[in-house]
């Protein structure tokens, strides 16, 4: 027994020692960059990123990049901030585009304007879609360079459209059309059980994002550019939320209660909803999983079209040394070059972040073969910034709670949004 114990203890100590040493093995003269990167699922995207990094390192000897995959956007922000606060060497990261104010409040990011020196670099900063730059710019300075970016589009089941006599090439362009078509597409069996809903807008995970689209379509933004005031209780917002609620409660073309973000794709693929609003990031999985013909459309309009952008930007951190900052800039420029952006977009389904990427041979051909890939691009002209303020996580929680309370029939839109506005005011007034 004794020797067993000794061995067990020894083994434990050894395993511990090995585990402790593992992260710190590589030490060399090269400039080493550590980058936090938000991916929930390891596989495809980590593989692609690691591949890109490998190629970059081959082309740029002297710079080593290590990517730390830390989970979804929220997890990654938490983890990156924790690492920065603990003084660990992190020089750049891809983080949620809406984290910009929080990163500024924590005093950890450098604007790209301080990093670029040449005119070519300044031109590079101008080469992205303006809609994608909105979340990264504060007070005229650019803190975030778009990379893993998405937007909301509408996926629809063409077979279902045909089945009820709708033209599969004409998806709804307005809210009213969406309701009308939704009514036709909603299918009930003899007992009244719904076999297929007309439309589904997810309301867990990122309800504020979906609501950003609805509000914009109704002509209202949710916050100001400085990120220190919200407009939750504006009449157009109340109207937009009323419409969202009515889809289930009044028109009965959508399930009542909240609709789960994560399982919605499954429902769409099983034909349980004829239309769904979801991220462009879903394009490839839907394409791989659909046993029917599907289409992708821009979101419909009320007063105008509109969809917030979303996803992750590159940030460079203050604690990086001047050499590291330049190395980081080199890396980011390399990663966002047109041909790589094009390849990235085709492999992942994320949007290409700059117009000239769509001009490349490969992406042009891809779009020709698979037109849905261009819908997000075409929607950019109507796109807006994603919801972002100081203490974003907390403020958007007020909004999320209000939205869910209304969708589940607990509160009226005006009351719920007024409360959310009050909560947001309480937090944000400290930043004015």
């Amino acid at each position, binding site marked *: *027994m*004794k020797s067993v*114990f000794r061995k*067990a*203890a020894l*083994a*434990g*100590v050894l*395993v*511990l020692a*090995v*585990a*402790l040493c*593992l*992260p710190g093995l590589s030490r060399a003269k090269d400039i080493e960059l550590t980058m936090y990167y938000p991916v*929930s*699922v*390891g*596989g*495809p995207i980590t593989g692609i990123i690691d591949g890109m990094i490998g190629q970059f390192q081959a082309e740029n000897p002297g710079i080593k990049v290590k990517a*730390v*995959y*830390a*989970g*979804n*956007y929220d*997890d990654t922000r938490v*983890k990156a901030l*924790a*690492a920065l*606060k*603990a003084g660990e060497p992190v020089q750049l990261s891809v983080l949620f585009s809406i984290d910009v104010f929080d990163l500024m409040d924590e005093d950890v990011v450098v604007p790209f304007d301080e990093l670029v020196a040449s005119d070519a670099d300044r031109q590079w900063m101008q080469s992205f879609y303006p809609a994608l730059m909105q979340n990264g710019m504060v007070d005229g300075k650019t803190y975030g360079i778009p990379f893993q970016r998405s937007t909301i589009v509408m996926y629809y089941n063409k077979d279902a459209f045909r089945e009820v006599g709708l033209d599969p090439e004409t998806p709804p362009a307005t809210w009213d059309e969406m309701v009308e078509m939704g009514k036709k597409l909603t299918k009930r069996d003899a007992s009244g059980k719904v076999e297929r809903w007309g439309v589904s807008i997810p309301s867990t995970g990122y309800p504020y994002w979906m609501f950003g689209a609805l509000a914009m379509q109704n002509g209202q933004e949710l916050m100001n550019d400085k990120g220190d005031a919200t407009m939750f209780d504006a009449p157009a917002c109340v109207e937009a939320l009323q419409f969202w609620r009515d889809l289930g409660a009044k028109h009965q073309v959508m399930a009542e209660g909240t609709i789960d*973000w*994560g*399982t*919605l*794709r*499954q429902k769409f*693929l099983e034909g349980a909803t004829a239309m769904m609003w*979801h*991220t462009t*990031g*879903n394009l490839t*999985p839907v394409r791989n*999983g659909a*046993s029917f013909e599907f289409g992708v459309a821009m979101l419909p309009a009320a007063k105008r079209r509109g969809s917030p952008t979303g996803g992750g930007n590159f940030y460079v951190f203050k604690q990086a040394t001047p050499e590291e900052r330049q190395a980081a800039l080199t890396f980011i420029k390399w990663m966002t070059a047109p041909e790589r952006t094009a390849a990235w977009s085709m492999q992942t389904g994320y949007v290409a972040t700059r117009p000239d990427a769509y001009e490349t041979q490969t992406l042009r051909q891809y779009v020709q073969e698979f037109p849905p890939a261009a819908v997000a691009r075409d929607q950019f002209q109507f796109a807006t910034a994603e919801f972002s303020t100081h203490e974003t996580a907390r403020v958007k929680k007020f909004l999320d709670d209000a939205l869910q309370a209304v969708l589940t029939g607990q509160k009226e839109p005006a009351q719920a949004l007024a409360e959310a506005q009050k909560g947001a005011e309480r937090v944000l007034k400290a930043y004015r």
Partner: protein
Amino acid sequence: MNDRITRILETLACWTLALLWAGPLLFALWAAFHGQEYLTRLDPTAPLTLDNFAQAWATAPFARYYLNTLAYTLCTLAGQFVLCTLAAYAFARFRFPGRDVAFMLVLVQLMIMPDQLIVENYQIMSALGLVDTIAGISLPYVASAFGIFLLRQTFKQVPVELEEAALVEGASRLQVLTKVYIPLGRPTYLAYGLVSVSYHWNNFLWPIVITNSVTTRPLTVGLAIFGAPESGVHFPIISAGTLIAVAPLLLAFLLFQRQFVQSFMRAGIK
């Protein structure tokens, strides 16, 4: 007659309940070994496939997660065995001022576990530079009130005469501990070990707080991240990933069921 009917009804009820309890896991097995199209169509002739496992395995670094979980679980266990043995010995066989107060203070941890102190413990780990290390996950659990309590009870039942005899023969206190107490406490160590391993293999909240990267993340945290991708879930693959994560402990349990059940019993009866 009446008795027989009751018995039959009772048997049926018991089986129904057992089936209900086995159901979710059986369903996960079904989902993991079949294609998406058979997810809710329980057709016994449906073709079996290992694709889901292949995809799950390729999607997340499960091998690394296994290694991390093993390191974390075993380090914790080894530390617990050593520290709890020493402390239990002190409480069981030594008289020293403040012993009873110290024991009460130890028992506080039975009620308030590190799992509830995530906020402060995170800051302490951060100050110690142990965030995102295996040691950081392990340390709060190493001094375990439960282990100390259990071993103290066991040691107290060892006849004092045995110890005295050994001491007379010239053995040191530590030798007495390793030659007399630990061998006699074997069943308790087994019981406590199994309970500890099951607990830490399945632990989630503290690991998700304290780990940042693939190099330290245990299976549970990896599974949570794996199970909630941004773009939406794919149930057959999630099921496969879930089974990959639980397989070792589940198999161990099914193989050594008696030991498991008895260990939990032993650990529960104080």
